[in-house]
Protein backbone atom coordinates (compact mmCIF):
# COMPACT_ATOMS: atom_id res chain seq x y z
CA UNK A 1 0.00 0.00 0.00
CA UNK A 2 1.22 3.49 -0.80
CA UNK A 3 0.04 6.25 1.44
CA UNK A 4 -3.34 7.96 1.27
CA UNK A 5 -4.99 11.08 2.66
CA UNK A 6 -7.98 10.71 4.94
CA UNK A 7 -10.96 13.09 4.87
CA UNK A 8 -13.51 12.97 7.66
CA UNK A 9 -16.55 15.10 6.77
CA UNK A 10 -18.98 15.99 9.55
CA UNK A 11 -22.01 16.22 7.28
CA UNK A 12 -23.44 15.06 3.98
CA UNK A 13 -22.83 18.33 2.10
CA UNK A 14 -19.12 18.25 2.88
CA UNK A 15 -18.88 14.64 1.72
CA UNK A 16 -20.80 15.30 -1.52
CA UNK A 17 -18.69 18.37 -2.20
CA UNK A 18 -15.48 16.41 -1.76
CA UNK A 19 -16.69 13.64 -4.04
CA UNK A 20 -17.63 16.25 -6.66
CA UNK A 21 -13.99 17.29 -6.84
CA UNK A 22 -12.19 14.03 -6.13
CA UNK A 23 -14.70 11.19 -6.72
CA UNK A 24 -12.60 9.03 -9.07
CA UNK A 25 -9.61 9.34 -6.71
CA UNK A 26 -11.56 8.44 -3.57
CA UNK A 27 -12.43 5.34 -1.60
CA UNK A 28 -15.62 5.87 0.37
CA UNK A 29 -15.22 4.24 3.78
CA UNK A 30 -18.27 3.02 5.71
CA UNK A 31 -17.53 0.00 7.94
CA UNK A 32 -14.38 -0.91 6.05
CA UNK A 33 -14.96 -4.66 6.09
CA UNK A 34 -14.86 -4.97 2.29
CA UNK A 35 -12.61 -2.00 1.62
CA UNK A 36 -9.82 -3.20 3.93
CA UNK A 37 -9.79 -6.64 2.30
CA UNK A 38 -9.80 -5.05 -1.18
CA UNK A 39 -6.94 -2.70 -0.30
CA UNK A 40 -4.91 -5.48 1.29
CA UNK A 41 -5.27 -7.56 -1.83
CA UNK A 42 -3.73 -4.65 -3.74
CA UNK A 43 -6.91 -3.82 -5.61
CA UNK A 44 -7.38 -0.33 -7.12
CA UNK A 45 -5.54 1.93 -4.74
CA UNK A 46 -6.80 5.55 -4.73
CA UNK A 47 -5.19 8.55 -2.99
CA UNK A 48 -8.15 9.62 -0.81
CA UNK A 49 -10.07 7.85 1.92
CA UNK A 50 -13.42 9.50 2.71
CA UNK A 51 -14.56 8.30 6.12
CA UNK A 52 -18.36 8.62 6.30
CA UNK A 53 -18.70 7.27 9.83
CA UNK A 54 -19.17 10.72 11.43
CA UNK A 55 -22.15 11.62 9.26
CA UNK A 56 -25.06 10.95 11.59
CA UNK A 57 -27.72 11.53 8.93
CA UNK A 58 -26.55 8.31 7.21
CA UNK A 59 -27.47 6.28 10.29
CA UNK A 60 -31.18 6.99 10.67
CA UNK A 61 -34.01 4.49 10.36
CA UNK A 62 -37.54 5.88 9.93
CA UNK A 63 -41.01 4.75 8.96
CA UNK A 64 -43.50 7.03 7.19
CA UNK A 65 -46.64 8.05 9.10
CA UNK A 66 -48.84 5.74 7.03
CA UNK A 67 -46.33 2.89 7.62
CA UNK A 68 -45.90 2.37 3.88
CA UNK A 69 -42.26 3.39 3.48
CA UNK A 70 -39.28 2.37 5.58
CA UNK A 71 -36.12 4.40 5.20
CA UNK A 72 -32.79 2.86 6.25
CA UNK A 73 -29.64 5.01 6.21
CA UNK A 74 -26.69 3.61 4.24
CA UNK A 75 -24.53 3.76 7.40
CA UNK A 76 -26.81 1.46 9.43
CA UNK A 77 -24.82 -1.56 10.59
CA UNK A 78 -25.93 -5.18 10.34
CA UNK A 79 -26.03 -5.30 14.14
CA UNK A 80 -28.61 -2.52 14.15
CA UNK A 81 -30.55 -4.32 11.43
CA UNK A 82 -30.49 -7.29 13.79
CA UNK A 83 -31.74 -5.38 16.81
CA UNK A 84 -34.06 -2.56 15.64
CA UNK A 85 -37.76 -3.47 16.16
CA UNK A 86 -38.75 -1.16 13.27
CA UNK A 87 -36.78 -3.33 10.83
CA UNK A 88 -37.87 -6.60 12.41
CA UNK A 89 -41.52 -5.57 12.06
CA UNK A 90 -41.54 -3.89 8.66
CA UNK A 91 -38.78 -5.72 6.75
CA UNK A 92 -38.60 -9.13 8.46
CA UNK A 93 -36.56 -10.92 5.78
CA UNK A 94 -33.89 -8.20 6.04
CA UNK A 95 -33.87 -8.70 9.79
CA UNK A 96 -33.52 -12.45 9.28
CA UNK A 97 -30.52 -12.11 6.94
CA UNK A 98 -28.59 -10.33 9.68
CA UNK A 99 -28.38 -13.51 11.81
CA UNK A 100 -26.23 -15.45 9.35
CA UNK A 101 -24.28 -12.45 8.06
CA UNK A 102 -20.53 -12.99 8.68
CA UNK A 103 -19.62 -12.89 12.39
CA UNK A 104 -20.66 -10.73 15.33
CA UNK A 105 -17.45 -8.69 14.96
CA UNK A 106 -18.15 -7.96 11.30
CA UNK A 107 -21.85 -7.23 11.83
CA UNK A 108 -20.84 -4.57 14.34
CA UNK A 109 -18.96 -2.70 11.60
CA UNK A 110 -20.49 -3.72 8.27
CA UNK A 111 -23.15 -1.40 6.85
CA UNK A 112 -26.05 -1.99 4.50
CA UNK A 113 -24.74 0.77 2.21
CA UNK A 114 -21.33 -0.88 1.93
CA UNK A 115 -22.97 -4.24 1.26
CA UNK A 116 -24.96 -2.87 -1.67
CA UNK A 117 -22.28 -0.48 -3.02
CA UNK A 118 -19.68 -3.26 -3.11
CA UNK A 119 -21.85 -4.83 -5.84
CA UNK A 120 -20.88 -8.36 -4.89
CA UNK A 121 -23.43 -10.83 -6.26
CA UNK A 122 -23.51 -12.44 -2.84
CA UNK A 123 -24.44 -9.39 -0.75
CA UNK A 124 -26.90 -10.83 1.74
CA UNK A 125 -28.97 -7.68 2.18
CA UNK A 126 -29.79 -7.51 -1.53
CA UNK A 127 -32.55 -10.17 -1.94
CA UNK A 128 -34.42 -8.81 1.12
CA UNK A 129 -34.14 -5.27 -0.28
CA UNK A 130 -35.35 -6.46 -3.69
CA UNK A 131 -38.55 -8.04 -2.29
CA UNK A 132 -39.34 -4.70 -0.63
CA UNK A 133 -38.86 -3.03 -4.03
CA UNK A 134 -36.21 -0.85 -2.43
CA UNK A 135 -34.62 2.14 -4.08
CA UNK A 136 -31.26 3.62 -3.17
CA UNK A 137 -31.28 7.38 -2.67
CA UNK A 138 -28.00 8.55 -4.13
CA UNK A 139 -26.58 12.04 -3.66
CA UNK A 140 -24.10 13.94 -5.76
CA UNK A 141 -23.48 17.62 -6.55
CA UNK A 142 -26.42 17.65 -9.01
CA UNK A 143 -28.88 16.59 -6.29
CA UNK A 144 -30.48 13.30 -5.29
CA UNK A 145 -31.68 10.52 -7.54
CA UNK A 146 -33.31 7.18 -6.78
CA UNK A 147 -31.93 3.95 -8.21
CA UNK A 148 -34.06 0.78 -7.92
CA UNK A 149 -32.07 -1.98 -6.22
CA UNK A 150 -32.39 -4.18 -9.30
CA UNK A 151 -30.53 -1.53 -11.30
CA UNK A 152 -27.74 -0.96 -8.77
CA UNK A 153 -25.49 -3.64 -10.24
CA UNK A 154 -24.56 -3.77 -13.90
CA UNK A 155 -22.78 -7.09 -13.40
CA UNK A 156 -20.82 -8.94 -10.74
CA UNK A 157 -18.79 -6.31 -8.81
CA UNK A 158 -19.88 -3.63 -11.30
CA UNK A 159 -21.91 -1.00 -9.54
CA UNK A 160 -24.11 1.46 -11.41
CA UNK A 161 -22.85 4.16 -9.03
CA UNK A 162 -20.64 6.93 -10.39
CA UNK A 163 -17.45 7.82 -8.52
CA UNK A 164 -19.11 11.09 -7.38
CA UNK A 165 -22.12 9.28 -5.90
CA UNK A 166 -22.79 8.70 -2.23
CA UNK A 167 -25.57 6.30 -1.21
CA UNK A 168 -27.57 8.13 1.44
CA UNK A 169 -30.33 5.68 2.28
CA UNK A 170 -32.64 2.96 1.04
CA UNK A 171 -36.41 3.42 0.77
CA UNK A 172 -38.32 0.17 1.17
CA UNK A 173 -42.00 -0.58 0.57
CA UNK A 174 -42.64 -1.50 4.19
CA UNK A 175 -44.80 -4.54 4.88
CA UNK A 176 -45.67 -6.74 7.82
CA UNK A 177 -46.21 -9.96 5.87
CA UNK A 178 -47.80 -13.08 7.31
CA UNK A 179 -44.89 -15.16 5.99
CA UNK A 180 -41.30 -14.15 5.33
CA UNK A 181 -37.91 -15.80 5.20
CA UNK A 182 -34.30 -15.47 4.08
CA UNK A 183 -32.12 -18.49 3.35
CA UNK A 184 -28.58 -18.93 2.12
CA UNK A 185 -26.08 -21.62 1.28
CA UNK A 186 -22.51 -20.64 1.93
CA UNK A 187 -19.14 -22.14 2.46
CA UNK A 188 -16.72 -20.38 4.74
CA UNK A 189 -14.12 -18.54 2.71
CA UNK A 190 -15.47 -20.05 -0.46
CA UNK A 191 -16.29 -18.29 -3.70
CA UNK A 192 -19.51 -16.83 -4.99
CA UNK A 193 -19.93 -19.78 -7.36
CA UNK A 194 -20.85 -22.03 -4.45
CA UNK A 195 -23.21 -19.58 -2.82
CA UNK A 196 -26.85 -18.75 -3.15
CA UNK A 197 -29.41 -16.77 -1.21
CA UNK A 198 -33.12 -16.08 -1.46
CA UNK A 199 -35.76 -13.99 0.24
CA UNK A 200 -39.54 -14.23 0.26
CA UNK A 201 -42.53 -12.53 1.81
CA UNK A 202 -46.19 -13.42 1.34
CA UNK A 203 -49.72 -12.85 2.56
CA UNK A 204 -52.80 -15.05 2.20
CA UNK A 205 -56.52 -14.38 1.92
CA UNK A 206 -59.26 -15.80 4.16
CA UNK A 207 -59.35 -19.01 2.06
CA UNK A 208 -55.62 -19.60 2.53
CA UNK A 209 -54.75 -18.62 -1.04
CA UNK A 210 -51.61 -16.57 -1.62
CA UNK A 211 -52.80 -13.00 -2.16
CA UNK A 212 -49.38 -11.32 -2.27
CA UNK A 213 -45.90 -12.70 -2.82
CA UNK A 214 -42.45 -11.31 -3.54
CA UNK A 215 -39.49 -13.58 -4.21
CA UNK A 216 -35.87 -12.76 -4.98
CA UNK A 217 -32.83 -14.88 -5.81
CA UNK A 218 -29.32 -13.69 -5.03
CA UNK A 219 -25.67 -14.70 -5.26
CA UNK A 220 -25.93 -17.41 -7.92
CA UNK A 221 -26.67 -14.95 -10.72
CA UNK A 222 -24.33 -12.04 -11.55
CA UNK A 223 -26.97 -9.49 -10.54
CA UNK A 224 -29.89 -9.87 -8.12
CA UNK A 225 -33.17 -11.07 -9.58
CA UNK A 226 -36.79 -10.72 -8.68
CA UNK A 227 -38.49 -13.88 -9.91
CA UNK A 228 -41.84 -12.67 -11.29
CA UNK A 229 -42.69 -16.07 -12.83
CA UNK A 230 -42.32 -17.82 -9.51
CA UNK A 231 -44.47 -15.15 -7.86
CA UNK A 232 -47.20 -15.56 -10.54
CA UNK A 233 -47.18 -19.32 -10.14
CA UNK A 234 -48.07 -19.04 -6.44
CA UNK A 235 -50.47 -16.09 -6.62
CA UNK A 236 -54.08 -17.09 -6.01
CA UNK A 237 -53.17 -20.67 -5.05
CA UNK A 238 -52.95 -22.62 -1.82
CA UNK A 239 -49.35 -23.93 -1.64
CA UNK A 240 -49.08 -27.71 -1.87
CA UNK A 241 -46.08 -30.01 -2.18
CA UNK A 242 -46.84 -30.32 -5.87
CA UNK A 243 -46.93 -26.55 -6.37
CA UNK A 244 -43.69 -26.10 -4.45
CA UNK A 245 -41.96 -28.75 -6.59
CA UNK A 246 -43.26 -26.99 -9.68
CA UNK A 247 -41.98 -23.64 -8.32
CA UNK A 248 -38.56 -25.14 -7.60
CA UNK A 249 -38.34 -26.47 -11.17
CA UNK A 250 -39.37 -23.12 -12.60
CA UNK A 251 -36.82 -21.28 -10.45
CA UNK A 252 -33.99 -23.56 -11.59
CA UNK A 253 -35.08 -23.05 -15.20
CA UNK A 254 -35.06 -19.26 -14.83
CA UNK A 255 -31.65 -19.35 -13.14
CA UNK A 256 -30.18 -21.38 -16.02
CA UNK A 257 -31.72 -18.92 -18.48
CA UNK A 258 -29.74 -16.14 -16.81
CA UNK A 259 -26.43 -17.86 -16.10
CA UNK A 260 -26.29 -20.29 -19.02
CA UNK A 261 -25.18 -23.91 -18.66
CA UNK A 262 -21.86 -23.43 -16.88
CA UNK A 263 -20.09 -26.41 -15.28
CA UNK A 264 -21.22 -25.25 -11.81
CA UNK A 265 -24.83 -25.74 -12.87
CA UNK A 266 -24.73 -29.44 -11.95
CA UNK A 267 -24.40 -28.27 -8.37
CA UNK A 268 -26.49 -25.13 -8.57
CA UNK A 269 -29.60 -26.65 -10.14
CA UNK A 270 -30.40 -29.15 -7.36
CA UNK A 271 -29.10 -26.72 -4.71
CA UNK A 272 -31.38 -23.88 -5.74
CA UNK A 273 -34.34 -26.27 -5.79
CA UNK A 274 -33.48 -27.72 -2.41
CA UNK A 275 -33.07 -24.32 -0.80
CA UNK A 276 -36.33 -23.10 -2.34
CA UNK A 277 -38.25 -26.14 -1.07
CA UNK A 278 -36.79 -25.74 2.40
CA UNK A 279 -37.80 -22.09 2.49
CA UNK A 280 -41.28 -22.39 0.96
CA UNK A 281 -42.42 -25.69 2.52
CA UNK A 282 -43.58 -24.08 5.82
CA UNK A 283 -46.11 -22.14 3.69
CA UNK A 284 -48.11 -25.35 3.29
CA UNK A 285 -48.95 -25.41 7.00
CA UNK A 286 -49.19 -21.62 7.29
CA UNK A 287 -51.83 -21.39 4.53
CA UNK A 288 -53.91 -24.06 6.23
CA UNK A 289 -53.93 -22.40 9.65
Amino acid sequence: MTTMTCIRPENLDEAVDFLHHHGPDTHILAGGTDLMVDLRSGKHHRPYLLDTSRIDSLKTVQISDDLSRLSIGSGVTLTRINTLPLIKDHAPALHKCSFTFASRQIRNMATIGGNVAHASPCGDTIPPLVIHEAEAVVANKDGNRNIPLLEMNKGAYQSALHPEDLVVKFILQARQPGFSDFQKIGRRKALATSRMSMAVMADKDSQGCISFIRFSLGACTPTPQRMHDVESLFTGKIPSVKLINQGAGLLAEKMVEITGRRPSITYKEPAVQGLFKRMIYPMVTWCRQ
Partner: protein
Amino acid sequence: MTQTRIPVQFILNGKKTAVDILPEQSALQVIRDELGMKGTKEGCGIGECGACTIEVNGQAVNACLMFGVQLDGCRVMTVEGLAEDGRLHPVQEKFLAGHAVQCGFCTPGLLMSTHALLGENPEPDDHQIVQAISGNICRCTGYQQIFSSVRAACGQSDQGSVRENQDSKEERC
Protein backbone atom coordinates in the same frame (compact mmCIF):
# COMPACT_ATOMS: atom_id res chain seq x y z
CA MET B 1 8.73 9.57 0.34
CA THR B 2 7.15 11.75 3.00
CA GLN B 3 4.06 10.22 4.47
CA THR B 4 1.20 12.29 5.83
CA ARG B 5 0.33 11.12 9.28
CA ILE B 6 -2.93 12.13 10.88
CA PRO B 7 -3.60 12.59 14.56
CA VAL B 8 -6.03 10.16 16.17
CA GLN B 9 -7.22 10.29 19.78
CA PHE B 10 -9.12 7.68 21.69
CA ILE B 11 -9.49 6.15 25.13
CA LEU B 12 -7.48 2.94 25.24
CA ASN B 13 -8.10 0.71 28.25
CA GLY B 14 -9.26 3.75 30.21
CA LYS B 15 -6.31 5.98 29.26
CA LYS B 16 -6.39 8.92 26.85
CA THR B 17 -4.22 7.97 23.90
CA ALA B 18 -3.01 10.17 21.06
CA VAL B 19 -1.08 8.81 18.11
CA ASP B 20 -0.22 9.98 14.60
CA ILE B 21 -1.02 7.29 12.07
CA LEU B 22 -1.07 6.64 8.35
CA PRO B 23 -4.60 6.63 6.89
CA GLU B 24 -4.21 3.14 5.44
CA GLN B 25 -3.08 1.60 8.72
CA SER B 26 -5.50 -0.85 10.28
CA ALA B 27 -6.58 -0.51 13.89
CA LEU B 28 -4.55 -3.68 14.48
CA GLN B 29 -1.38 -2.09 13.09
CA VAL B 30 -2.00 1.00 15.20
CA ILE B 31 -2.41 -1.05 18.38
CA ARG B 32 0.44 -3.51 17.77
CA ASP B 33 2.99 -1.52 15.79
CA GLU B 34 2.41 2.12 16.77
CA LEU B 35 1.44 1.54 20.41
CA GLY B 36 3.45 -1.64 20.93
CA MET B 37 0.62 -3.55 22.58
CA LYS B 38 1.06 -7.11 21.40
CA GLY B 39 -1.79 -8.79 23.27
CA THR B 40 -4.10 -8.43 20.28
CA LYS B 41 -3.07 -11.03 17.69
CA GLU B 42 -3.02 -11.11 13.93
CA GLY B 43 -4.12 -14.43 12.48
CA CYS B 44 -5.69 -14.22 9.05
CA GLY B 45 -5.74 -10.43 8.63
CA ILE B 46 -8.99 -10.65 6.66
CA GLY B 47 -11.76 -10.94 9.20
CA GLU B 48 -12.06 -14.70 9.38
CA CYS B 49 -10.36 -15.89 12.56
CA GLY B 50 -11.21 -13.36 15.29
CA ALA B 51 -7.69 -13.39 16.82
CA CYS B 52 -7.60 -9.59 16.48
CA THR B 53 -10.91 -8.98 18.30
CA ILE B 54 -11.00 -5.77 20.34
CA GLU B 55 -13.88 -3.82 21.85
CA VAL B 56 -14.82 -0.45 20.39
CA ASN B 57 -17.53 1.48 22.25
CA GLY B 58 -18.47 -1.79 23.93
CA GLN B 59 -18.81 -3.80 20.71
CA ALA B 60 -16.51 -6.59 19.56
CA VAL B 61 -14.87 -5.82 16.21
CA ASN B 62 -12.05 -7.24 14.08
CA ALA B 63 -9.16 -4.79 14.45
CA CYS B 64 -7.66 -6.14 11.20
CA LEU B 65 -10.68 -4.95 9.17
CA MET B 66 -10.93 -1.58 10.82
CA PHE B 67 -9.03 1.48 9.66
CA GLY B 68 -7.03 3.10 12.46
CA VAL B 69 -8.79 6.41 11.77
CA GLN B 70 -12.09 4.78 12.75
CA LEU B 71 -10.79 4.58 16.33
CA ASP B 72 -10.79 8.38 16.62
CA GLY B 73 -13.02 9.53 19.46
CA CYS B 74 -13.88 5.96 20.54
CA ARG B 75 -13.59 3.99 23.75
CA VAL B 76 -11.28 1.10 22.92
CA MET B 77 -10.46 -1.96 25.00
CA THR B 78 -7.87 -4.62 24.28
CA VAL B 79 -7.03 -7.77 26.22
CA GLU B 80 -4.49 -5.72 28.23
CA GLY B 81 -7.40 -3.77 29.70
CA LEU B 82 -9.10 -6.78 31.29
CA ALA B 83 -6.95 -7.37 34.37
CA GLU B 84 -7.04 -4.66 37.04
CA ASP B 85 -4.39 -4.00 39.70
CA GLY B 86 -2.68 -7.28 38.89
CA ARG B 87 -5.92 -9.24 39.33
CA LEU B 88 -7.31 -11.21 36.44
CA HIS B 89 -10.75 -10.38 35.12
CA PRO B 90 -13.38 -13.02 36.07
CA VAL B 91 -13.65 -14.03 32.39
CA GLN B 92 -9.89 -14.73 32.36
CA GLU B 93 -10.22 -16.71 35.60
CA LYS B 94 -12.91 -18.90 34.06
CA PHE B 95 -10.82 -19.53 30.93
CA LEU B 96 -7.90 -20.63 33.10
CA ALA B 97 -9.97 -22.80 35.39
CA GLY B 98 -11.81 -24.35 32.44
CA HIS B 99 -8.63 -25.23 30.48
CA ALA B 100 -9.83 -23.08 27.58
CA VAL B 101 -6.25 -22.17 26.65
CA GLN B 102 -3.74 -24.37 24.87
CA CYS B 103 -1.39 -22.44 22.60
CA GLY B 104 -3.25 -19.27 23.58
CA PHE B 105 -3.22 -17.55 20.20
CA CYS B 106 -7.00 -17.34 19.97
CA THR B 107 -7.44 -16.47 23.64
CA PRO B 108 -7.20 -12.65 23.59
CA GLY B 109 -9.82 -12.51 20.83
CA LEU B 110 -12.12 -14.94 22.59
CA LEU B 111 -11.77 -13.07 25.88
CA MET B 112 -12.77 -9.85 24.15
CA SER B 113 -15.74 -11.44 22.37
CA THR B 114 -16.90 -12.84 25.71
CA HIS B 115 -16.33 -9.55 27.52
CA ALA B 116 -18.31 -7.65 24.87
CA LEU B 117 -21.12 -10.18 25.08
CA LEU B 118 -21.37 -9.82 28.85
CA GLY B 119 -21.38 -6.03 28.52
CA GLU B 120 -24.35 -6.21 26.16
CA ASN B 121 -26.16 -9.08 27.81
CA PRO B 122 -25.15 -10.25 31.31
CA GLU B 123 -27.28 -13.41 31.06
CA PRO B 124 -26.92 -14.78 27.54
CA ASP B 125 -28.43 -18.15 26.61
CA ASP B 126 -26.43 -20.84 24.79
CA HIS B 127 -27.53 -19.64 21.38
CA GLN B 128 -26.45 -16.08 22.14
CA ILE B 129 -23.10 -17.36 23.38
CA VAL B 130 -22.61 -19.29 20.15
CA GLN B 131 -23.56 -16.23 18.09
CA ALA B 132 -21.06 -14.12 20.03
CA ILE B 133 -18.05 -16.43 19.74
CA SER B 134 -18.53 -18.10 16.38
CA GLY B 135 -16.37 -15.43 14.72
CA ASN B 136 -13.40 -16.75 16.74
CA ILE B 137 -11.48 -19.75 15.48
CA CYS B 138 -9.41 -21.99 17.74
CA ARG B 139 -7.07 -24.54 16.18
CA CYS B 140 -6.29 -26.35 19.45
CA THR B 141 -9.07 -26.92 21.90
CA GLY B 142 -11.94 -28.28 19.86
CA TYR B 143 -14.08 -25.54 21.44
CA GLN B 144 -15.65 -27.60 24.23
CA GLN B 145 -13.53 -26.10 27.00
CA ILE B 146 -13.94 -22.63 25.54
CA PHE B 147 -17.69 -22.98 25.34
CA SER B 148 -18.01 -24.22 28.92
CA SER B 149 -15.64 -21.52 30.18
CA VAL B 150 -17.70 -18.84 28.47
CA ARG B 151 -20.82 -20.38 29.97
CA ALA B 152 -19.16 -20.33 33.38
CA ALA B 153 -18.16 -16.70 32.87
CA CYS B 154 -21.81 -15.99 32.10
CA GLY B 155 -22.77 -17.60 35.42
CA GLN B 156 -24.13 -20.82 33.90
CA SER B 157 -23.44 -24.35 35.06
CA ASP B 158 -20.77 -26.36 33.28
CA GLN B 159 -22.98 -28.24 30.86
CA GLY B 160 -24.10 -27.72 27.33
CA SER B 161 -22.59 -28.87 24.12
CA VAL B 162 -20.41 -27.18 21.63
CA ARG B 163 -21.99 -29.07 18.76
CA GLU B 164 -24.32 -26.20 17.98
CA ASN B 165 -21.28 -23.94 17.86
CA GLN B 166 -19.57 -26.08 15.25
CA ASP B 167 -22.76 -26.49 13.24
CA SER B 168 -23.40 -22.82 13.17
CA LYS B 169 -19.93 -21.66 12.16
CA GLU B 170 -20.79 -18.59 10.19
CA GLU B 171 -20.71 -18.77 6.46
CA ARG B 172 -19.40 -16.33 3.95
CA CYS B 173 -19.23 -16.14 0.22
